[in-house]
């Protein structure tokens, strides 16, 4: 069985198939960004993206994800360590305190903005309903998601123009946009 984690193909040993996937990621792959905080799917600290959908994985097994495309928080920043504009917005807006909910929160917001790059503030508030944070009162998290939205709008336009003109080069703009955003912000 294979998993596709942060763009890498992972061969899952048979013995690991019945493991909780959160343990597999944390222990076997050393991707400790996904946190255990409730073990019942109530808090969202373990959220990862599976085919761009936010999934609370603490109650799931490795075998539930055969062949699926997984993104953990470790896979969101650029390979050179440059923060994704959404991450940068979390930093800039003061949306991080203790940081324990942050990975799940960022990924939930990322999935949301991929689908809804022009959200209202109320939609943003609703989008993170499944992720608990005890430090921030969510206010600066919502600010950060709103602040990052224009990046996703540009990405969306980039994708549209790429598919219209069939130019593969258009997709490459992701990192340039990220850097431009950092400099501008």
């Amino acid at each position, binding site marked *: 069985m294979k998993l596709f984690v942060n763009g890498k193909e992972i061969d899952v040993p048979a013995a690991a198939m019945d493991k909780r996937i959160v343990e597999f990621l944390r222990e076997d792959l*050393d991707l*400790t960004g996904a946190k255990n905080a409730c073990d019942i*799917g*109530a808090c969202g600290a373990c959220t990862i993206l599976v085919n761009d959908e936010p999934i609370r994985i603490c109650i799931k097994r490795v075998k539930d994800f055969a062949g699926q495309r997984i993104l953990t928080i470790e896979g969101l920043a650029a390979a050179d360590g440059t923060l994704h504009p959404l991450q940068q917005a979390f930093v800039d807006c003061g949306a991080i*305190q*203790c940081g324990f909910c942050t990975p799940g929160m960022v990924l939930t917001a990322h999935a949301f903005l991929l689908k809804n790059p022009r959200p209202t503030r109320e939609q943003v508030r609703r989008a993170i309903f499944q992720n608990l944070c005890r*430090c921030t*009162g969510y*206010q600066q998290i919502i600010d950060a998601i709103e602040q990052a939205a224009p990046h996703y709008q540009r990405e969306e336009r980039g994708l549209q123009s790429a598919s219209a003109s069939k130019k593969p080069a258009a997709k490459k703009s992701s990192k340039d946009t990220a850097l431009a955003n950092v400099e501008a912000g």
Partner: protein
Amino acid sequence: MPELDKKSWRNDAYAKVTGRAKFTDDLKFANLLHAAPVYSDYVHAKLIAITTAEAENFPGVIKVLTAKDVPGANRFGQIIRDFRIFADDKIRYHGDVVAVVVAETREIAIRATQLVKVNAEPLPAVLDPEAAMLPGAPLVHENHGTNIVKTHVVRRGDVEAGFRQADFIVEENFQTQTVEHAYMETEAAVCVPRSTDGVIEVYGSMQHPFSTRRFVAACLGIPLSEVEIIGTPMGGGFGGKDDTAAIVCARTALAAKLLNRPVKMVYRRDWSMRESYKRHPYRVHYKMGVTKEGRITAVQCRIVADGGAYCSVTPWVTWRSTVQCCGPYVVENVHCDTFGVYTNNVVAGAMRGFGSPQMNFVIEQMVEIAAQRVGISGIEFRRRNMVRQGSVTITGQKLDGHKVAMEQALDTVLREMDYEKKLAKCAHGKGDADELYGIGLAMSYRGVSLGAEGVDFCAAIINAQADGSIFVEVGVHENGQGSESAMSLLLAEELGVDLNRIRYRRSSTSNIPDSGTTVASRGTIMGGGAVMLAARELKKKIAEAFSEKLGCAADKVRFKDNFICGRSDTDRIAFDDAMRQMWQMQQFPFALGTFKAPRVSWNEHTGQGDAYFTWVYGCQAVELTVNKKSGKVKLLNAVAVHDVGRAVNPEMVRGQIYGGMAMSAGYGLYEEVKAPDGKMTTLNLNTYRIPRSMDLPEMKAIIIENPDPVSPTGAKSIGEPANEILAPAIANAIFNATGQRHFSLPIHLGAVPEPTICGEGCK
């Protein structure tokens, strides 16, 4: 290098937003063992025997630890040494731990906990704090002689005479609930016996490394120097990562020491909920005399705090409640009796607010009730009684060493909210609409730091390097609030250097002097004070080293823009060059700063004294609607105004305010630890409901800056002030919406919305 953005800068933001920050459970060591606690199903019982053989024979189990394995003190505590590392004579509450199973894997450890047998003789449990105070009640701690842990009083003026001067007497009973901190990260420890020198290294989720060190050293019977607590990112504390966190570390360290292997114990949420100490539930009888002019003549109150099975910090929590029992109001005649009481309920200890959220829920409703009797607005009533510059508090402390900003905070909220106009629109239970509108506010003052509760001083070490980079470390702990960042910002500013020169050194109890616990909203004022004094010391050393070269007296040397300057900006030496030269001069650019809290005083017989060395002032208001049919409360908008002295990191200050308001909204409307018969049923985040994004309104945080002369940085506090007044503001708004007063927390109005978010694992 470009200067970093100081507005929201955090030294740990990058690590946290990329998932690279390593919390305790993320740490890995070779040959790691795992531990799990064993509870019994008793609430109060005499312990006869614990049988561990079956568990110890379970494949993969290495050892089962009980009280008999403790080489040092099994009983410890910060005030009274009554906490048990393991239950030894009795089981005093449902969260008492009788044993810890250590195994090759966490799963095995957890499975084997079921095999430990506890033989005990049930005793009558006392679960009602009032009943616990009566003669003949079962004693939780026989050797204490009574269930009353501690009493405090305020005796000021003549309360009977004060009531005789009054035109109205208002008198009510209030009750508050047990609440859980609900930090996202549960208690966790990894303890590693260092092979080179036998020191036990402790990595853990805690907000008091030095207290944890005392617990560990006492339990193991070894000197403080043989335990090293290494600072580890903490996933939330809110006052809750002190005693229980320390005990979890002590048990884990014991396992590591005895087995000579690294051991990890990460609490499952249900263990954390069941065992960890909570915010005290209070019962308060409050009587207030007022004149027809709206002046308070007297207050008499009786406060009973349920401290649960062990002392923890109950005497300190109830002391703050006593000192602040009249809120920010001048009252000449006060008679307050406060009792902290042992029961067989879950332990109560420190939680953000520390005895003030309970009292403010009472006081801020009482002033509105009194105002209504007098026939004036709650705002006007507050104005006629609030503390002002030079006022004397109910403990006899004159407020003149700092700006008394109570009215400034109130006025700012009124203006920002357009409050009085909106007040006129409140429904008061009338009208045809389903949604009843209300607005309400509450305000408080708060003594900063520990006050007469305890020893209060803090250290900072600055160690500049020969290339101009700088290490700083401070004896307060990063709880997630941004303490390390605030300390770094203060240092950069004071030394006139770029922030990116400064590296906050990961703390270790073996390096920095014991500077107390990072509680009581004391991190910025005490830690920042120490940084400032260390920086001044360092600057003095540097100035003396270069005054001759700069051609001016040492006290005229200035530090700006990464240069050390003489009289003019052109007579200057680059900071990094200066550091290199100091090395050649055989001088260390090194300084230790110690900030000691200014003098405080307390007479425990009269309840009089200068309780705190300074105070902060805050006011919060909230708009809401109440659905007539469902009783659902919808928060629409909230504003907070706080005088913080000086905002070192404004975005972080706002973050504290928003988070504090959110927690207080939960306190007001949702949160309640339920434990019928002493056995907790709210054991996870599905049944213990903390606010979700949709439960909260848009919030606005307004910072007032009146730099405080007693604080070397001018900064004061925000963590707890932010968390102590939204619940009473909500109560007042609900009254203005419905015409109904609510005297107990959380406020239930008819049908209560149930949490809807839950995975397959939820029942």
